[in-house]
């Protein structure tokens, strides 16, 4: 049985500081949910509250149907991978992996079998006799992961597990984590500040800032329809450009004026109810702001800009240009030959504009969801409906080990 996780009106207050404010979030059973945000946004506190290392100040946390506010970490049946890995330095890999099972009173033969299984899955078989200090960063990471996997918990918690790895290894482990999730389908809450990890790994992404949940959605939806300026700026690299604009309505037709050009709101998009004419913030993704010479026919709007900085990335180049007094970043093809101080023509598709309320920062333009998100969604729905065979057996065993009942005794 897969467990969902629910936060209901959860607050966490440290002295005068509110780390998490009114968090309402559901992690669906078997889902890989990424909690992303800048440092200090409350994402790690949220994770630690779910692990039982912090107590919520208000609100309810549920794993499955069980209220766990007052359940100590050892009875929550969650497993956590720490950013620092937190391997036991005085134990070898075998004992590190076996620790959790032994603590739960598993028989020696069962432990040996499962350690072997887990070590094989993670390619740790030849390292079982080594101490953590004799392992490379990537190997330590695997051991930390193995220590969580071996327990077959109801929920996986991961606190920036990849941030101590070098770039190459990080990409490799990212794929491996996704594969492991595909295989075991354990409900996972994954905390990171890296939006690339969030986009590539999450079934859904929850964006947090300043202790508040900003938006929870599938990666593509988040990218195409960010709920506010914060999410729009946080997701996507290079960052979305924000320029001031003006909304005007004449004869029932709404138009937007920015960077010295004016265009009607495109047909597919819809303005939200409370929108009125006046100051707005216009968001432009760098890939939607193209070099005039290579722009697609959809990019009908053109503006003139002076190149400030060219950053070649190999497969493309980021060009920062000044346009009508605003600095914007645009994605250029590689070897475009543009130089600093050169005047270039930038083209953009009016349908790709994002509009935000200048004061509240909330989005005021609902755009049609791009194809990718729909596909992704269907995959996820399908995954939810399919009976989780094999996995469910493991879960039943987990339940049978009696962790929940013991927990009830103590709470």
């Amino acid at each position, binding site marked *: 049985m897969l467990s969902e996780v629910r936060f209901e009106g959860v607050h966490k207050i440290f002295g005068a500081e509110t780390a998490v404010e009114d968090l309402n979030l559901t992690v669906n059973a078997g889902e890989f949910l990424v909690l992303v945000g800048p440092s200090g946004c409350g994402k790690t506190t949220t994770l630690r509250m779910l692990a039982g*290392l912090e107590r919520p100040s208000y609100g309810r946390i549920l794993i499955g149907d069980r209220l766990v506010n007052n359940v100590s970490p050892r009875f929550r049946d969650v497993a956590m991978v720490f950013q620092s890995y*937190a391997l036991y330095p005085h134990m070898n890999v075998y004992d590190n992996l076996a620790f959790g099972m032994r603590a739960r009173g598993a028989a020696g033969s069962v432990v040996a079998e499962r350690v072997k299984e887990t070590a094989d899955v993670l390619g740790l078989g030849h390292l079982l006799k080594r101490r953590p200090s004799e392992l490379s960063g990537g190997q330590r990471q695997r051991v930390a992961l193995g220590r969580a996997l071996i327990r077959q918990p109801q929920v996986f918690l991961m606190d920036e597990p990849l941030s101590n790895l070098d770039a190459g290894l990080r990409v490799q482990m990212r794929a491996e984590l996704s594969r492991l999730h595909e295989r075991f389908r354990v409900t996972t809450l994954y905390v990171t500040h890296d939006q690339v990890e969030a986009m590539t790994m999450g079934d859904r992404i929850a964006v947090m800032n300043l202790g508040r949940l900003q938006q929870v959605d599938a990666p593509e939806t988040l990218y195409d329809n960010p709920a506010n300026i914060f999410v729009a700026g946080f997701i996507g690299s290079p960052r979305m450009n924000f320029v001031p604009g003006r909304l005007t309505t004449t004869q029932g037709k709404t138009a937007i004026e920015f960077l010295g050009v004016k265009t009607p709101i495109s047909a597919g998009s819809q303005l939200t109810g409370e929108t009125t004419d006046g100051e707005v913030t216009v968001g432009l993704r760098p890939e939607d702001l193209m070099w005039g010479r290579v722009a697609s026919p959809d990019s009908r709007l053109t503006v003139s800009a002076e190149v400030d900085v060219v950053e070649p990335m190999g497969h493309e180049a980021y060009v920062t240009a000044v346009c009508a007094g605003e600095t914007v970043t645009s994605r250029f093809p590689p070897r475009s030959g543009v130089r600093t101080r050169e005047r270039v023509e930038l083209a953009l598709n009016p349908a790709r504009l994002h509009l935000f309320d200048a004061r509240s920062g909330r989005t005021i333009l609902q755009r049609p969801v791009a194809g990718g998100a729909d596909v992704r969604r269907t995959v996820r729905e399908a995954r939810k409906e399919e009976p989780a065979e094999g996995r469910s057996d493991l879960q039943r065993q987990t339940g049978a080990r009696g962790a929940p009942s013991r927990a009830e005794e103590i709470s």
Partner: protein
Amino acid sequence: MSAVSARRLADKELIVVPYRRVSVSALATNVVLILLGCFFLLPLLWMVFASVDANPDWAIKIPTPTLANFADVIGRADALSSFRSSLILAGTTTVLTTLLALLAAYPLSRMHIPFRRSFMLVILFASGLPVSMLVVPVYQMYVYLGWLDSLYTTALFLAASSLPFAIWLMKNFIDAVPLELEHAAAIDGASTFRILRQVVLPLTVPGIAVTAIYTFINAWGAFIIPFVLTYSPENQPGPVEIYNFMGSHGLFKFGDLAVFSLLFSLPVIVLYLFMSRYFSGAFNFGGAVK
């Protein structure tokens, strides 16, 4: 740089070997250090020389070699009993202090205790108090309780006086054990007792060893407290015995005194060597975090 250009550089003697300048301050520092070193080393030298000298006196001189002094001391019952007394005294003190310091240091390191900082400062202050200040009231208390002239009750006071520093020392060692390891173990399903026994304790072993050795060495050399609180000859520990060598035997037996002092300092030297291994990072948390 290619070999050719390197040789050319050498041919032209462009590599300048700087000569060392001896500054006045460096010279002064070294002279002071050498003088201080002599201050400590000369008595030790006397001890070594006198112990193997057939006719030792208070001066340092080239000895007329003999092992008679050693035979003399080892044959004496009071010398042997003082070793036994010192062992009981220092051993009991060490066990008591280390155990209590561990029990006190863990919560001080890990738990939210009101006024913890002030409490730690009080402990630090207490560890600096001279024990001799308390000797008279403690003596009266021991008389009142009927605890005089017992090695174990004396060890109790020695333990009490060495506890503040031991707690402070131990707390720093426990502070160094990453809290995340305990969290990881708790999430892994371990009980508090199992966490302490299998995670915290093994990682605190160097700290326990250092605290124990430090306490033992101090108790081994303790003079004033056993001098005041014990009086029977068989309960006199080593330092008091050394004092007796000088006082009650009328004529100074320099050779015996030197041999006894030498033998008595051996355990301390051995333990220091042992402790330095722990202090120089024989154990680390490699792989625990990062």
